[in-house]
């Protein structure tokens, strides 16, 4: 036996399709498509204007094909369906009116929505293709002044807040996918935590892509007012199709003075098969602005799915003494590609950022960390600590680290550490000599490697993440 790669990933557990009647619009993208989406959602004029502006920007933009370390065939943007919603009766008043088939779907995904079975301590917004189908614990949260609802509802009910912050962190012309999203986004989640409130429960959104022809373009906006605190979780899965689906989301976070937002993702989109056929293109723009003094934004991500991951959850540290954190585990196996990392932009005085990135690459997958630490001239005493560790499994896997550091203030301190390791035969033998099976030994070593990141996850998510890594790597060492 040698450390060869017999790559037999266990079946993707979430690969089934819900048989449900959907209302879709014709494929293709034009100004009319944008207007149609806006009309379907009965949006106000300002929202349509926002979309149209984004669309016009997008027309003049290029896909980021050159700088990321990823390769993929041409995407025909005219061949995508930009709106797909499960057919349902007019606006639902309560969960009881949600199509039972949808409730069953989320049940099966481990996200029960019905009153009796709801997860304790976690409020969930369930998004199916282009629309939010249900949000739990809404009333309970409202008592605390916390608004948690679908993005569509927010545009109708909380227009002022949405209008104030939408696009304030990720402008419509930020990049190709963000512009596309801004033009055609269909739904997503909106969270607003008022001044001084500690959100009494975890908030989470579960994204499910079901339609093989539609893309998913969701929009998330989280605003934490002065002194408030919120922890938000995001999960996602999709059926197995042999065609690639585009997922281009935009997430914007705003933290005012002394506010704290913790955003955690366990991304398990369908990754394609062993030969690299099918899977999600996960092209996502996530950015948080620490607008206020002493504010804090912390990103934790466990990226295990998708055929391609292109994502750089970032922090703009504008308020003095604000803190940005990025904890990431990115796992790629078989033909998966990931180019992921973060940007920490230090604007304010005494701003601090921490980046801990763990890349795991197996099969003939390619895994790149790309990170920018930028210290602007006024960021007195800014500090950054970056640690990038890569682990390779087998001899065909690749890992790269691309750290970009731009320092424009001499009083700042920037530290960068990087390492690359392999699971050694000696390590496996040691664990197996104690009676631990080879698969468990691999899991144990990988979990040890990811520990600093897993510690940041809420408990249930950490358990899920541990399990997921084990599954994804099953048989990765032969």
């Amino acid at each position, binding site marked *: 036996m040698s450390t060869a790669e017999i790559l037999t990933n266990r079946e993707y557990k979430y690969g089934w399709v819900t048989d449900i009647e959907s209302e879709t619009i014709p494929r293709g993208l034009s100004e009319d498509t944008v207007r149609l989406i806006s009309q379907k959602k009965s949006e106000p004029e300002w929202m349509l204007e926002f979309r149209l502006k984004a669309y016009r920007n997008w027309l003049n933009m290029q896909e980021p094909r050159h700088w990321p370390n990823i390769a993929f065939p041409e995407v025909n943007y005219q061949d995508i369906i930009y709106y797909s919603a499960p057919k349902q009766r007019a606006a639902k008043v309560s969960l009881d009116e949600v199509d039972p088939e949808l409730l069953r779907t989320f049940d099966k995904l481990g996200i029960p929505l019905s009153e009796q079975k709801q997860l304790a301590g976690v409020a969930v917004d369930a998004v199916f293709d282009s629309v939010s189908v249900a949000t739990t614990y809404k009333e309970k949260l409202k008592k605390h002044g916390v608004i948690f609802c679908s993005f569509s509802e927010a545009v109708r009910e909380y227009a002022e807040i949405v209008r104030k912050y939408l696009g304030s962190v990720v402008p419509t012309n930020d990049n190709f996918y963000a512009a596309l999203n801004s033009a055609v986004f269909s739904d997503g989640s909106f969270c607003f935590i008022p001044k001084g409130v500690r959100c009494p429960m975890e908030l989470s959104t579960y994204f499910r892509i079901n339609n093989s022809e539609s893309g998913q373009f969701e929009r998330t906006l989280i605003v934490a007012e002065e002194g408030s605190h919120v922890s938000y979780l995001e999960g996602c899965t999709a059926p197995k199709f042999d065609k690639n689906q585009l997922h281009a989301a935009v997430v914007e976070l705003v933290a005012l003075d002394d506010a704290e937002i913790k955003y955690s993702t366990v991304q398990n989109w369908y990754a394609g098969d062993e030969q690299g056929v099918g899977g999600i293109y996960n092209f996502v723009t996530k950015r948080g602005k620490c607008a206020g003094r002493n504010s804090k934004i912390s990103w934790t991500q466990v990226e295990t799915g998708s055929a391609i991951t292109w994502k750089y959850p970032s922090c703009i540290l504008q308020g003095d003494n604000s803190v940005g954190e990025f904890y990431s585990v990115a796992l790629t196996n078989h033909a998966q590609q990931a180019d992921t990392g973060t940007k920490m932009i230090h604007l304010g005085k005494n701003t601090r950022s921490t980046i801990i990135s763990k890349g795991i690459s197996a099969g003939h997958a390619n895994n790149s960390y790309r990170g920018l630490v930028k210290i602007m001239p006024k960021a007195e005493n800014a500090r950054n600590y970056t640690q990038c560790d890569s682990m390779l499994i087998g001899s065909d896997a690749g890992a790269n680290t691309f750290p970009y550091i731009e320092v424009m203030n001499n009083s700042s301190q920037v530290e960068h550490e990087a390492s690359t390791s392999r699971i050694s035969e000696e390590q496996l033998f040691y*664990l197996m000599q104690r009676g*631990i099976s080879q698969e468990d030994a691999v899991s144990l070593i990988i979990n040890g490697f990811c520990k600093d990141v897993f510690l940041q996850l809420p408990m249930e998510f950490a358990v899920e993440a541990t399990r997921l890594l084990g599954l994804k790597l099953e048989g990765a060492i032969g």
Partner: protein
Amino acid sequence: MLEIRNLYASVDGNEILKGINLKVNKGEVHAIMGPNGSGKSTLAKVLAGHPSYEVTRGEVLFEGKNLLELSPDVRAREGVFMAFQYPIEVPGVSNAQFLRLAYNEKQKHLGQEELDPLEFKDLLKEKAKIVEMEASFMTRSVNEGFSGGEKKRNEILQMAVLDPKLSVLDETDSGLDIDALRIVAEGVNKLHDPNKAVILVTHYQRLLNYITPDFVHVLSAGRIVKEGGKELALELEEKGYDWLKNGSVAAGAK
């Protein structure tokens, strides 16, 4: 308990073990001595099932079973333990987490009760006394940042937890100061009973002042060239290994 018959093993095409015969009964302590490079660690690793070593001839029976056809983890669960000459570090995995997983695998294999983290903590606390290890070692990553002596003590702790039938201790005495040597040796003695067997692999006879072997075998260039009782170890201490090198030629010639 263990019977090794005419065992040949090679690594990367180099033949290292050249016809080992050894029989170990319950309750016995065997010492395997020999100069550096004679194949002592190779023998230990072959018994434990290290994937780099290929057995080209011979057989090994453990409790009547063909040991060589079992994977390393199954051998371990069946009761074969090897204390490593160079214990491996596993960053980010706590000693307690690792040991509980190992313990429960064995329990499961034997159809016995598995322990939850709290129950296991109590067991670990008891076992840690045997090698005088502090509680803080249980929450630290496996062997990471341990001194040489601490790593060796940690090996014996694992032996105490896993309660193996056959323990192969590879140079467990090397790198230990006199106090640590005493602790480790006393630990091994405490764990020994008439139903178990121990194979001590050592270069020096120092350890044998603390653990008395019933038999001493001298390995040279992949063969056992001399065997005897505990007094053989003293003789080796006095004369060194050089006088045996000729003996090995003779043994090879006959």
